[in-house]
């Protein structure tokens, strides 16, 4: 049962971290746009610097990815212990793995600095739509064992 609790808590916390990544990505895009357009509005003064937003984004995605990894491992393991199967081809499982893969790619891309700034911000926003779909969408539109919402 402990596995299931860790699985749930870590997964939810990882979503929260990805939410922080998403928000900092959106703020980054807004701030970047103001800088490129040479517009110093109220928003410009209130928002943090691009570098700061970028660091939040990196940190949030790193933490989120680590938590998601723990959540997934515990999920798979818990499933094996409780139900005797490692994997059920549940849509949520598939999506969660896809999510894990996407954030892995995003993390690697960001850490290796192949992409920076606006594009990373855009990707972290895109990643979060996948989070939303995995978290909320699945149980609405697809048959799943993880139907609790």
């Amino acid at each position, binding site marked *: 049962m402990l596995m299931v609790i860790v699985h749930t808590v870590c997964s939810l916390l990882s979503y929260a971290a990805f939410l922080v990544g998403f928000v900092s990505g959106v703020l980054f895009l807004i*701030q970047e746009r103001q800088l*490129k357009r*040479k517009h110093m509005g109220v928003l410009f*003064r209130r928002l*943090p*610097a691009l*570098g700061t937003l970028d660091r939040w984004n990196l940190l949030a995605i790193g933490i989120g990815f680590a938590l998601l990894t723990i959540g997934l491992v515990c999920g798979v393991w818990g499933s094996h212990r409780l139900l005797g199967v490692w994997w059920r081809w549940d849509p949520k499982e598939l999506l969660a793995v896809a999510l894990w893969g996407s954030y892995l790619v995003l993390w690697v891309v960001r850490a290796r600095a192949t992409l*920076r700034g*606006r594009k990373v911000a855009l990707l972290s926003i895109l990643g979060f739509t996948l989070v939303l779909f995995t978290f909320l969408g699945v149980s609405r539109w697809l048959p799943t064992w993880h139907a609790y919402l």
Partner: protein
Amino acid sequence: MHIVVVGANYRSCPIEVRERLAFQADQLAAAYAALREHVGLAESLILSTCNRVEIYANATSPDGAAARLASFLGAHSRLDPQVLRPQLYTHAEPSSIEHLFRVAGGLDSMVLGETEILHQVKRAYEQAQRHGATGKVLNVLFQKALNAGKAIRAQTGISRGCRSVGTVAIELAQKIFGDLRPYAVLLAGTGKIGELVLKRLSARGVSRVRVLNRSLDRAQALAAFYGGQAYGLEALEGQLLDADIAVMSTASPTALLSRAQVAAVMQARRQRPLCLIDLGVPRNIEPSVGELDNVYRFDIDDLQGLVDHNYERRRQALQASQAILERKVNGFLSWWQEETQGCAQRVSSGLVAAP
């Protein structure tokens, strides 16, 4: 009881006089002792900054106290009283209170709305407290003044404006990088505005400075002053790999940096953000460079546009500040009135002995 202020600021007297009037931190203990014992003030507070020296006091009679404070400042500065007197100003309440609130709000500052003065007022207040020089009245007065200073800045945005091309450039760089300390700066050309921007960047503690110029002597002189290295202008592209902020102010008739060049540089520096400030006329950098990802390019017109925009906003902010100021001063005055009346009543009803 009266709240008086006697002092001098950048408008009332030149720097030579302010230097003589200024109080160093190690003189404060003796100064506060003298104010208490020789000038006979129950409460006093010395505000000494590079732009002003003022003593606030809670005194029994305004005239006598003001005259004694002026003599005290004369003795402290060792200036001829005949010379010093006309350069001092004196306010009794309510104008002394309004004056302090204006000072705390940055409305009396050389650079309108600057924030440093609020810290200085706070520090002066803390020092006075530590020396046991303030009592109930000055405590409330300065807490309200600090509160008014904060409110003016928070509600009107008066401090957020910029005054010059240089400060706008710094603000933009800070909005890109945040804390500028870990970043490297490159200055191409040794023009006056370029140097001004470099000076401000260096005051923000940037970690590395490079100066590039056609003639190496000028570059070396400037680089030595700011603790950086000097190169010829031909090193520009190579040096850009390392710099985070590049200030261009050469008199070159053609652009020194093309879009293709900067694109190649960006690739080589792995897309680390680059802030380009082009002060040259004609421009030193092709304008389309600004369209590249992670490149932030500003030319002199962009900066000028932001200065003007701010000027208008600051004028509006000044009007808004005035309204807050009045409200805060009235707030204190009503407390003060209650306080003095309450005190008088207690005296008349025999609850406390008359002072």
